[in-house]
């Protein structure tokens, strides 16, 4: 049974031309092992490299025309 169906663990979904969406039971840590507070249950992680709030997504992938190469 997948983590999504079982409702435990975490899932990571790469959205077409967008960020990685993380859901479930997870923590995001700094290199020092400190928890980076995300303030929400579902988070978007930058994968285009231009977010000003990395590791989180701030939507700027749209301005640079990021293409993930999947979807169609």
């Amino acid at each position, binding site marked *: 049974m997948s983590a999504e169906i079982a409702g435990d663990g975490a899932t990571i979904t790469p959205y077409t031309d967008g960020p990685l969406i993380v859901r479930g039971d997870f923590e995001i840590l700094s290199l020092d092992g400190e928890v980076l507070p995300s303030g929400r249950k579902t988070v978007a992680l930058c994968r285009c490299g231009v977010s000003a709030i990395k590791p989180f997504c*701030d939507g700027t992938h749209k301005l640079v025309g990021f293409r993930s190469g999947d979807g169609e």
Partner: protein
Amino acid sequence: MSVLQHDLAVTAFPMEARGPLSTRLTAILSQGPDDSAQGLELSPVAEAAVAAASSVVRDDDVQLSLFILYGLHYGSFPAVSADWEWHPELVAARRVLERAFEGELRATVAVPPLPQPTRVAVARALSELTSADSGPSLSRYVAKKATREQLGEFLIQRSVYTLREADPHSWAIPRLTGRAKAALVEIQADEYGGGRPARMHSEIFATTMEEFGLDRRYGRYVDEVPAITLASLNVMSMFGLNRRLLGAIVGHLAAFEMTSSIPNAMYANGFRRLGYGVGVTAYFDEHVAADAVHEQIAANDLAGALAEDEPALLPDILFGAAACLVVDGWAGAHILDSWTADRSSLRSGTP
């Protein structure tokens, strides 16, 4: 007349009328429904208001009346009897106004060619539609040029929707099923603070107003905002409260979320530029990260999945998205045009 009804009868409606229809409507709502069971005759007044308006989207009397009629469903006016909510004459008048409002939007809003009803194709079409949004930008002006007074006006204009943020789209929850419903609830749960009342977006915005020195009570500034600002909220209420417009409210939310992260980063910068601290900027900063999540869910899991599951809704999903961009574009242009002409964007001219 009971004591309670007498109290209601002498309670002045908390907003100023803007024409014959809103005058009649506020007079009716200042009484209890039992005091005036017959002879309300509001729909003929609504018909006349619509006939007299050159644009119902920009007509103060029509938009304020719609705002008040929708307010009965939200519970926006505590002094007004809740018994009015489903009064047939008020619903009939609302339908007159909605027919004209929707008709004008369908006639003026350009809808892009329909994509295939698949999750990926619909998300991509929405992405193209929302990135094509060009022209002068209110967010850029707020970031670089707005004065303290203009920032106050900006908060006042925003407060009509934002103190009720997310509520219009929540009407769609019971009307959806399956994965589209789960997606909408995932977004709305975050909008409503994920179980923490202080993190509700409407509450964070109320704190922003308070920290800025404005009154946080809902509806306090309605008299100040023009028809087009009321129309921006009325579009959402119309789409949300009419089940036949389910596709449109879903498309509206997708477009709203997809044009939010980047402007909110600029709004936050504008307030920081004039020395405002985190108490004021928290709302805008929050929306950079929040709406970067919401836009993905709204485009793919909500709008895309709904189009895949119910292809008949696809045209209205695109219409709702386009209507959001057009009407909010007009509301933003009103503010920007006023400021660049050295005028206040508010009706009284001063906050």
